[in-house]
């Protein structure tokens, strides 16, 4: 099922990309953002709440009364 059979995953091996000198390279900002499910949850709730729900409700509330 897998491609190459590496060793069993061991919890002690925490450094992620082992091998090569890039084990110390900092993770790019966007990758960190995408790796953070709770930040994404916050964005995924806030953006539509503001632009779709709140903006929409504000417009409905502001409908003028017929003269």
């Amino acid at each position, binding site marked *: 099922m897998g491609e190459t059979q590496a060793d069993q995953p061991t919890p002690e091996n925490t450094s992620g990309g082992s091998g090569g000198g890039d084990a110390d390279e900092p*993770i*790019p900002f966007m990758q960190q953002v995408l790796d953070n499910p709770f930040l994404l949850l916050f964005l995924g709730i806030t953006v539509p709440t503001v632009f779709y729900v709140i903006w929409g409700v504000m417009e409905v509330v502001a409908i003028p*009364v017929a003269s």
Partner: protein
Amino acid sequence: MSIFPPAQRIWWKEPIERSEILWVTIALVWCLVLFFMMPYWHLYGDQNLANEAYKIKPEVFAERTEAMAEKYTVREEGDTGIPVVHPPAGSDIYMLARLWEWWPVLELEKNQSYRLHLSSLDWQHGFSLLPENINIQVHPDYEMVITITPNKSGEFTVVCNEFCGIGHHTMTGKIHVVDK
């Protein structure tokens, strides 16, 4: 594979294959075309909703509709004797929705414009003008005003296409368009 974590620790810096970049660029351009068609049509197209709407009590809307009908009824139609109303070109005209009919029948003149007010006296209804296939949602407590300019003469039927209970499929109305 997608069911395993990415092989590289830092995948954000992977180079992207050319055809993928090309597709993303083409798709983005198409997305912008899709978007700008809407404001474009507002400027150059003939079918737009002005989004003119007001809060209005059903009794008030009914009064205004009946007032128009009283002034401009020209005859009655059908088994139910529904009034056919021929308002002056350019005027404010009314059609109300109620369980289960559109009232009254309107008679309009081809190539003339009218400010059509739509509202419901009870539940939500769907104003579907056939065979034009113009569809507007009609709410109680709110009226929508749209300026319409019938560009063909003939008989047009209003079918309710918002489910409104057991009589929903019997809810119809009519607009006649006559040559001036």
